[in-house]
């Protein structure tokens, strides 16, 4: 069960950050954006209650996540070390810090639920809530990357906490904006509160992002000291992904700010109500993915520590070099024959068959996606002639390619396991984190295709069904961004990771583009749709040119 424990251990890091953002960001929202003690803005009881509910629920969830983290660590260590990890584990920073943070988060959440909620308009109680939450924030310093370092430990721990704080202020604020829009949509708050709070958050958000960059830059410079370290290590690569996601989120935030400024000049709220909520939804997608990427980054060795395992930029570029796709596969017998030598510790023999098998899988998947994106582009065009009407009517079902791809991946992804190989389905799924990820990805691709076909049928009466596609695509992107390749040397694993993380970013662009296409009016709708399909095409190209290192 080590595989599933390891898998859950890494996922909980992302969930922990989300809960932290919900709690701390909601607190900042109340203190600096909402300011409930300024009654002239006409906040009602429902508004204040939902705001504080998000705050204390974030606290309780954070405590739960922290506790679950400890339980998972115990499970993982029991599985890996094949013995009960106590009493040694009880004296570790992780156990003590995690337990303390759990108690502190529970105390803060309890205060907000029972005391702040009853005095929602009291400035003194909001300040007290922040004082009660402060130890939760500080205690996090002992649970970050920097806690195990030898050099500049205190500085790095402090900067990391400041970085988390800035992220929480921004992301938690975005969660609260979603809440405000829902209240506005249901008519539970005054209509003019939406633009008012958008404008206030716009300024607050810029301050948060500034702190995010000011605190993040020295951390990055401490862990990455060369250009090769940035482009040629897993740490640098994930940092670049974070920067790319941050840029995407900031782009959407910039669109929101423009809408707010335009409203200030014209007084016309149509853009604020018809576009901005969907930009915020898309921004939420990106920011949640950013948090999971940040959690993954925390488990990567800093570039400064692995100079001998760093790839140079030419090697990184080489992974994207166009090549003729591999359309023939080695036999399953040849693959299995090379497995014993490939996984051996002493006398390891790289398996050419395994490499070619993997290249074939990736290249064929790339052909699937490229052909699908071609038909997706065609589906936006009108039929040029009557005899082509039926064809143009049917190509809107291009997502059927995902169903076929899912079936292909099911049989090909892990050839040493069931249904092709000798290792059983459940044994391989729950003992190997990589196989588990492949299984989930395969199911995701298949379900994505089935649901999208159903959504495109004329008989579909459910207006929400088309929204499943971008949601699942975003999750697919998240998997690509955090996918691991065990059994390779560190440098090879990184060179594989580069292509996967690039596809992860494109998958997220595909998802947010499609989401906005479904929600926005023209011309934004068309632009978003084109960007979405172009991202799918890019993913197809990366997969089609994929070449796995032979070691």
């Amino acid at each position, binding site marked *: 069960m080590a595989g599933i424990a390891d898998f859950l251990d890494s996922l909980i890091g992302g969930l922990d950050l989300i809960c932290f953002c919900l709690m701390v960001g909601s607190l900042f929202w109340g203190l600096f954006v909402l300011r409930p003690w300024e009654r002239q803005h006409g906040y009602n009881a429902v508004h204040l209650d939902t705001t504080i509910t998000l705050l204390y629920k974030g606290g309780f969830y954070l405590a739960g996540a922290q506790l679950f983290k400890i339980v998972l660590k115990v499970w993982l260590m029991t599985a*890996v070390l094949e013995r009960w990890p106590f009493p040694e584990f009880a004296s570790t920073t992780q156990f003590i810090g995690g337990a303390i943070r759990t108690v502190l988060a529970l105390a803060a959440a309890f205060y907000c639920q029972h005391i702040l909620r009853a005095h929602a308009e009291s400035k003194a109680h909001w300040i007290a809530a922040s004082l009660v939450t402060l130890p939760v924030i500080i205690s996090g310093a002992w649970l970050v990357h920097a806690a*195990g370092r030898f050099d500049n430990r205190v500085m790095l721990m402090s900067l990391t906490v400041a970085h988390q704080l800035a992220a929480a202020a921004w992301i938690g604020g975005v969660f609260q904006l979603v809440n405000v829009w829902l209240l506005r949509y249901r008519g539970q708050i005054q209509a003019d509160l939406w633009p008012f709070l958008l404008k206030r958050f716009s300024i607050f958000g810029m301050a948060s992002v500034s702190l995010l960059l000011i605190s993040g830059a020295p951390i990055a410079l401490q862990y990455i000291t060369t250009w090769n370290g940035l482009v040629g290590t897993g740490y640098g690569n994930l940092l670049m992904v974070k920067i790319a996601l941050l840029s995407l989120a900031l782009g959407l935030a910039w669109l929101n700010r423009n809408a707010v400024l335009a409203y200030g000049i014209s007084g016309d709220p149509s853009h604020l109500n018809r576009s901005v909520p969907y930009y915020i939804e898309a921004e939420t997608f990106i920011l949640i993915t950013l948090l999971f990427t940040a959690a993954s980054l*925390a488990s990567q060795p800093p570039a400064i520590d692995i100079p001998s395992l760093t790839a140079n930029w030419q090697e990184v570029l080489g992974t994207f070099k166009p090549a003729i796709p591999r359309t023939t596969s080695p036999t399953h017998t040849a693959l299995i024959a090379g497995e014993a030598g490939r996984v051996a510790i*002493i006398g390891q023999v790289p398996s050419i068959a395994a490499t070619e098998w993997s290249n074939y899988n990736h290249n064929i998947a790339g052909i699937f996606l490229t052909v699908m994106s071609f038909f997706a582009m065609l589906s936006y065009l009108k039929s040029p002639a009557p005899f082509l009407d039926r064809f143009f009517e049917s190509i809107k079902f291009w997502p059927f390619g995902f169903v076929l791809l899912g079936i292909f991946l099911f049989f090909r992804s892990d050839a040493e396991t069931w249904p092709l190989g000798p290792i059983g389905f459940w044994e391989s799924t729950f003992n190997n984190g990589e196989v588990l990820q492949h299984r989930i990805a395969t199911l*995701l691709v298949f379900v994505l295709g089935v649901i999208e076909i159903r959504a495109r049928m004329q008989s579909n009466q459910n207006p929400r069904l088309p929204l499943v596609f971008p949601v699942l695509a975003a999750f697919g992107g998240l998997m690509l961004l955090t996918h*691991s390749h065990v059994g390779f040397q560190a440098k090879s*694993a990184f060179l594989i990771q580069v292509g996967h993380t690039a596809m992860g970013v494109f998958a997220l662009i595909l998802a947010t583009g499609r989401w906005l296409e479904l929600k926005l009016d023209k011309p934004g709708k068309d632009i978003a749709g084109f960007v979405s399909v172009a991202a799918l095409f890019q993913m197809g190209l990366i997969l089609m040119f994929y070449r796995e290192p032979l070691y």
Partner: protein
Amino acid sequence: MKALLKLCLMVLALCQANPAAAHAVVTDYSLKMQPIRANRPDKVVITFNSRIELGLSQVFLVRKGDTHELLKIGNGEKQGQLIVEVPALEPGDYAIKFKVFAADGHLTEDVIHFSVAQ
């Protein structure tokens, strides 16, 4: 939108993957400069980039055929150093396989290959 956000978080919980590399990596080891000599017990010093929880770490000697033997370990003089006690070995190819728990909470498994000459 609220329901969708919940759905997002639920599926995210299913989709998160585990990064292969963990925080603790070997920055140096004594075998580079001092190879093990045949037929006499020796010590190997492994230096990590992070503090290591000794009580939650294991180091194995891997022989031909991938048989594993648990080795005694202790703290080195510097932070992040492990001293591994290696038994007397005949000439041949071996590996040191370790599972270490870093102070930041990440478990790392890796292998160092080495040869013993006559």
